[in-house]
């Protein structure tokens, strides 16, 4: 029990803390409000659920760094428990004789769990502090070639130390306070750990024990009152901004599906993001949610091969830029510093492979890839600043409908086949539209794959047709390279052609995951709703239905490279593997596979430009990983993965799953 003056003093302290909390949180809200678009808070119960699952489940945290994540789990659950503990402690201090859950059957177990949790939290935080400050874990630092906000290097250390000491202080003081209380009440079998500490105070008088409890009660709860208003200035805000991020993200058909721009809206003056406040609000939430764990950096193929890009540095830089301009940004001051001056370098901007690994791995739901592609949009649409090599591909899309600037026949690949591939014109009653893609039409290796796909469809008796010379690039390359207007024009033209061909009433199959993604996940926002399958999905379905018999054949060792736009972006990991196994091939998985697969180096329009300077080529790194499996063949499911990986070495033949399966038709 507090004394009456203490009660008044604490109530005043709470009011003062609330006053400052209101101001700092309002400031954070105002900064987020400066962003474009709106946060999505429709369907709140479901979204609250999503936030809670992220908070309590810690699912995406436990996927990587098992030891650290386990300690984090302990700290996070302990902290959740401490919300109750703090409220209970305040009530106990105000209400005479009140003990939370008191002598009910739950009273003892409650104290036991809190006793244990307190020590778990303390151990966890000591581990975190040792990891950062003593072991100097390399995962927590950035390579010197990565642009870092001048305030960030020291800022992260200060903030981390402050957060660590705050938790140690808050939980440690509360634990000590409890030990004095236990000593005063001569023992509590339910609190063995605090009880052990209590034995140290055996020589103290009752009043001294009570004074001890008073001091530590004030220290523990006073720290909370001090820290709460500080939250928006600290990365520790991740504990609620992370779950809030999961709650308030705009709905996306797939994790990397980009939002469309309405180019017919004449009032639009800003395209893409030039300055911080051009970013979507959800990406300003990202900056507050980031806990600077660098897990995205660990998963980023650009960073891992020595490029200037680190997705976490991008979030950290946003955060420190906000911190330095907090009041101005909150008060609506002009925001004129280009993101390219503080958030990431130009080389970093163009190093992104749009593979989506950063989004996938982030424990607080951040989407750094969206920022990068949004800045690319502004560089192309507003500034006309982009790698010179991309110009050829843009011109090719504009004039020839393909990024190679080839003006050839899109049906040339069919010539060696011993059956005819019908066009929609020849076969208007088709069931499946085979979208060949530019690679299938013009790249010699991908033409081989296209023939394999057609052969499989033919063998299974699928009633299919192609668009032939009416087909053109989906615009994927333009979109990933920031040329959203070109994408918009190509998408509109394709939607018209596909609708005319009645493809929206049938199914589309494609051999290219980039076409799969663009047609299936991104055309919807522009009014084109199509059911699109990857060839491995359709062929797997045909095998399953018994329409396609495979010989099985010799057990040859094979490894499979998950295309980012089939796997992470479209959630298909099983179909290609099922097919390979049905074809009698034994799969040796690479260390990074399925959800954790590593990009081939071609994504994000990289195929069409020189790789940014770094230590290694992304494709070489992946190729070496494939070689390490000892497999005889590297199977792929994407013509661009095939191109990148077959150019990366000679020891391992690179073959599309369709080809491998077509060779084993019974």
């Amino acid at each position: 029990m507090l004394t009456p003056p203490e009660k008044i003093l604490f109530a005043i302290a709470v009011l003062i803390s609330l006053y400052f909390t209101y101001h700092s949180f309002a400031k954070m809200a105002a900064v987020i409000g400066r962003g474009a678009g709106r946060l999505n808070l429709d369907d709140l119960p479901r979204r609250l659920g999503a936030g809670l699952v992220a908070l309590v489940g810690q699912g995406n945290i436990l996927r990587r760094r098992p030891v650290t994540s386990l300690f984090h789990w302990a700290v996070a659950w302990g902290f959740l428990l401490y919300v109750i503990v703090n409220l209970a402690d305040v009530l106990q201090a105000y209400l005479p004789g009140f003990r939370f859950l008191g002598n009910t059957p739950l009273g003892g177990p409650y104290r036991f769990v809190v006793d244990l949790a307190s020590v778990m939290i303390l151990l966890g935080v000591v581990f975190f502090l040792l990891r950062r400050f003593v072991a100097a874990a390399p995962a927590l630092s950035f390579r010197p070639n990565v642009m870092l906000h001048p305030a960030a290097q020291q800022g992260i250390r200060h903030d981390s130390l402050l957060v660590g000491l705050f938790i140690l202080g808050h939980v440690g003081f509360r634990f000590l306070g409890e030990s004095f209380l236990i000593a005063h009440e001569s023992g509590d079998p339910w609190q063995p750990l605090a009880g052990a500490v209590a034995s140290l105070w055996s020589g103290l008088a009752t009043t001294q024990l009570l004074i001890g409890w008073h001091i530590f009660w004030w220290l523990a709860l006073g720290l909370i009152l001090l820290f709460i208003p500080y939250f928006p200035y600290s990365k520790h805000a991740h504990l609620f901004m992370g779950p809030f991020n999961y709650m308030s993200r705009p709905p996306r058909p797939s994790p990397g599906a980009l939002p469309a721009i309405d180019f017919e809206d004449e009032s639009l003056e800003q395209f893409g993001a030039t300055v911080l406040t051009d970013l979507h609000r959800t990406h300003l939430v990202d900056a507050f949610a980031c806990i600077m764990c660098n897990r995205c950096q660990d998963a980023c193929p650009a960073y891992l091969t020595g490029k200037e890009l680190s997705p976490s540095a991008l979030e950290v830089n946003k955060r420190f830029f906000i911190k330095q301009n907090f009041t101005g940004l909150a008060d609506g001051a002009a925001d004129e510093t280009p993101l390219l001056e503080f958030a990431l370098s130009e080389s970093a901007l163009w190093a992104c492979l749009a593979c989506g690994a950063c989004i996938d791995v982030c424990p607080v739901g951040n989407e750094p890839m969206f920022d990068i592609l949004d800045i690319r949009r502004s560089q192309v649409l507003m500034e006309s600043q982009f790698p010179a090599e991309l110009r050829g591909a843009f011109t090719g899309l504009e004039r020839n409908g393909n990024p190679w600037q080839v003006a050839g026949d899109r049906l040339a690949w069919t010539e060696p086949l011993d059956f005819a591939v019908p066009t929609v014109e020849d076969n208007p009653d088709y069931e499946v539209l085979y979208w060949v893609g530019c690679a299938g039409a013009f790249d010699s290796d991908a033409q081989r794959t296209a023939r394999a796909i057609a052969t499989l469809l033919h063998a299974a008796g699928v009633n299919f047709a192609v668009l032939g010379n009416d087909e053109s690039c989906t615009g994927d390359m333009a979109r990933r390279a920031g040329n959203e207007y070109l994408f918009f024009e190509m998408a509109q033209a394709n939607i018209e052609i596909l609708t005319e061909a009645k493809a929206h009433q049938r199914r589309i199959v494609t051999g290219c995951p980039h076409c799969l993604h663009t047609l299936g996940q991104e055309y919807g926002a522009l009014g084109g709703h199509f059911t699109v399958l990857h060839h491995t999905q359709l062929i797997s379905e045909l095998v399953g239905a018994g329409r396609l018999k495979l010989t099985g054949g010799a057990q040859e060792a094979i490894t499979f490279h998950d295309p980012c736009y089939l796997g992470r972006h479209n959630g298909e990991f099983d179909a290609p593997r099922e097919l390979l196994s049905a074809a009698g091939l034994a799969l040796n998985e690479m260390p990074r596979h399925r959800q954790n697969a590593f990009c081939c180096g071609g994504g994000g329009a990289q195929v069409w430009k020189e790789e940014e300077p770094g230590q290694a080529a992304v494709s070489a790194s992946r190729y070496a990983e494939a070689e390490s499996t000892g497999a005889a063949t590297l199977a792929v499911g994407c013509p661009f993965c095939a191109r990148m990986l077959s150019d990366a070495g000679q020891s391992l033949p690179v073959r599309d799953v369709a080809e491998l399966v077509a060779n084993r038709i019974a």
Partner: protein
Amino acid sequence: MNIITLVKQAPDTTQLSGSLDGLKLLAEGAPRVLNPWDEYALETALQLVEAHGGSVTALMVGPAAATETLRTALAMGANQAVLVDDPALAAADTLATARTLAAAIGKLAPFDLIIGGRAGIEGNTGATAIQTAALLNLPLVSYVAALKTVDPAARTLTAVRLLDNERQIVETPLPALLTVVKEINEPRFPTFMQLRKAKKATIPTWNLADIGLTAAEVAPQVSWLAELPPAGQARLELIEGSPAQAAAQLVERLSKQQII
């Protein structure tokens, strides 16, 4: 500086391929673009205006449909575009076109500089700009690959001409007419805002009467009788051997011929 760039519409040669007869590109209705050489002229003009102030006018002689191509020039950043279109110009030869350009330039005067591409990509005569300079009594500097100094106050300009076997550094008083080669710069890619602005811009069209010419003055003297593919095929030689050997041989041959 007030700069007039001479631009024209040309067949889209990126549509050219083994399976498509090049001559079809000349046919009516085939895709048309801004003559690629003229993009370098425009870029030169735009950079000069960015450095010294003033405005860029894109001037074209061509059919009404060419207005769309002129929008590319506006999207790149030209301040205004003018099309000269008249039925009497349908079969214009280079001299007739030059007379038309000269008369239109007279109407656009005063100006400090006229810049054109080195040639039109399909006719490839390279004569129109030269004839225009003669008609306007202007100094001509052709095949400009770089501008060393431009002094609008002193009204002089120093340029580097790129010829087959030499480079020349030439000084000329202003106004003058330059033709440029592709080594001079990298033409810009229009921003979306410029594309949108260009889409809505009004492009004035002048006929012969507007520029004080009669049909007789632009009657063609030269006419095209036939368009044929080139007589000789390019000599193709395959270097045999492993990729490494072939590459080594290729490098040796290229460096022997001083290509690299």
